[in-house]
């Protein structure tokens, strides 16, 4: 196992001048998270005690083979499910304590979700798609329209605002989806294989956009991905295996690993 494990000092050095680690400016903290799925009599242990702190403004990638618990972990830290045991704090809030209304509030304003298959609402125009989370947040439609246009301009799609998703390329659709995720200015962008359905070049554009958003908005980006280009741009890579955090590495360390494999 050549992948080097990042120490806390190394992480701090990555964020020199950024987040204040001494006060623990973690946007997400997962403490000994366990998740058990019950299907009749059989129990499946998807997570067996995963602990991870994610810094505000960090660009984090999560790696792991299928069945490793990667998706479950991803859901837990995104507020999409509650752990069977252990704690998940999003912005210092223990999500297990939240009722459905508060959870919906959290998903609406704290986290922006980006999906592999874009998941745009096909019946709505791009503009309406971006306006939807704002409608859920109770923003009036005029304000929502103005803000949606601003964000669409930010991702370079202001001239396609009234098009339906089906009239757009995959890369454009994913950019609309990113705009939608940004609608309520979330602290976290949670992206599940965002480049898997895109060709190389448009994938790179999306990665570029993520990096830019990290800089301009200071948003924390968490992706589950196997895309090497994406891994290379991230600050840390979390490896999950058999329901646990196996190791946390830097992209540089992964380069060595990949070098060895090939």
């Amino acid at each position, binding site marked *: 196992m050549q992948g080097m494990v990042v120490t806390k000092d190394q992480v701090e050095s990555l964020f020199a001048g950024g987040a204040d680690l001494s006060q623990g400016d973690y946007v997400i903290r997962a403490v000994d998270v366990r998740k058990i799925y019950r299907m009749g009599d059989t129990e499946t242990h998807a997570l067996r005690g995963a602990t991870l702190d994610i810094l505000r403004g960090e660009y984090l990638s999560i790696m792991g083979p299928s069945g490793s618990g990667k*998706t479950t972990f*991803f*859901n837990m830290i995104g507020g*999409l*499910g509650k752990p069977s045991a252990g704690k998940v704090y999003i*912005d*210092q*809030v223990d999500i297990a*304590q*939240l*009722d*459905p*209304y*508060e959870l*919906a*509030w*959290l*998903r*609406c*304003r704290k986290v922006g*979700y980006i*999906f*592999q*298959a874009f*998941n745009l*609402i*096909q*019946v*709505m125009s791009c503009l309406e798609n971006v306006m*939807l*989370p704002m*409608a*859920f*947040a*109770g923003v009036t439609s005029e304000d929502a329209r103005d803000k949606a246009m601003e964000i669409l301009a930010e991702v370079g799609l202001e001239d396609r605002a009234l098009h339906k998703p089906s009239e757009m390329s995959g890369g454009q659709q994913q950019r609309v989806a990113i705009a*939608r995720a940004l609608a*309520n200015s979330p602290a976290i962008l949670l992206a*599940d*294989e965002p480049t898997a359905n895109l060709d190389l070049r448009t994938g790179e554009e999306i990665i570029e956009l993520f990096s830019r958003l990290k800089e301009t908005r200071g948003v924390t980006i968490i992706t589950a991905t196997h895309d090497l280009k994406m891994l290379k741009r991230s600050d840390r890579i979390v490896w999950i295996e058999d329901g646990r955090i196996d190791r946390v590495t830097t992209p540089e360390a992964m380069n060595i690993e990949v070098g060895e494999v090939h």
Partner: protein
Amino acid sequence: MENIGTQVRLPISTAVQIALQGIKIRLGRALVTISGVVLGIAFLMSVFTGELISGTGYIKGAMAQREELNNTVKMMESFVSQALGSPKDKIIGIVVAGELDQSELILAKRLARLTQDQKQAPKEVRAVGLSLPGLTRADVREVGKDASMLIVMGNSGALATAFEALTAGMEQVYVLDTYKPVVMAAAEGAHDVKMRTYAGAPVVVVEHSGQKYEQLYGDQQQEVLREQAEKAESARFRTVWVMIISLLVTIIGITNSLLMSVTERFKEIGTMKCLGALSVFIRQLFLIESALIGFTGSFLGMLVGALLPMLMYSISYRDPATGALGAGFGVIFGTINYPLLLAAGLSAVVVGTLLAIMAAIYPANFAARMVPAMALRSNV
């Protein structure tokens, strides 16, 4: 937890807007579901409309009135044929006093037509106070001469006093009286005649000496009426049963199509939840979608169910006197009770919409329970 708020419920208008968009994009599916509702509600409405046109109960429709008229005329005719056997070679006299009602006029017209028939034609039909082609004009004193039957018509009892004079030339003859007071008067004089009246009330039969009163035809008539009522009752029960079944089938159809729609939209629902939609909102979305489908379908079904029976009754309507087609549109569309038709239509639309909402309860709850993580599944 100072930095956590509670997600607010959205106004219904937002859900309506999104539900409408959903219907628009899946118009094909929506149309199939709507047509199911149209069929169910059209059936319901056609039963209502049919009741308004031909009902015999509380509300009497145009067709029911025609039917009643027909029955009245038939009953009078059967008195004639029972008394005379075949009218062939017989002489029949008609005396009119006062105004004729519809059934009397129809009877007179039929007798007049009968005289033009080759085989069944009576020898002569004489009439006093009534002029129709086929009838012979007669004098009051002559009308009963050699006649086998005298028919007294009209709403005036004036003839009662002249009764003896009228029947002067008759021996062992029948008098069909369509106006009761005349009979009562005739019973006073012991004339050697058989008399029958038709009426909704018990029929008085005066025989020979005028001593004997029978309620023969009254009893028979009541028996017939009771049988008819029993038949109508069982027909109504059957109709209600079929109606309930058809509405249940409609509900199941809507539920089925909504369940499919929910399954198809797993990812969309999950995505909306990820974006901050409450379960209440998702439930609303499907309930509203179903209500819109139900309302549209019921409205169309109500129109079909009202117009189709009206057209069909209009086309098949035969004039009671002449048996001719063609006058139906005026009769049906002119006489139907429009306030009641409107009330029936409104209730059909309300029933259809409520049923659609009921049908959506299970699919809507199913959708509302969907977890947001469903959005991440790429294979659905």
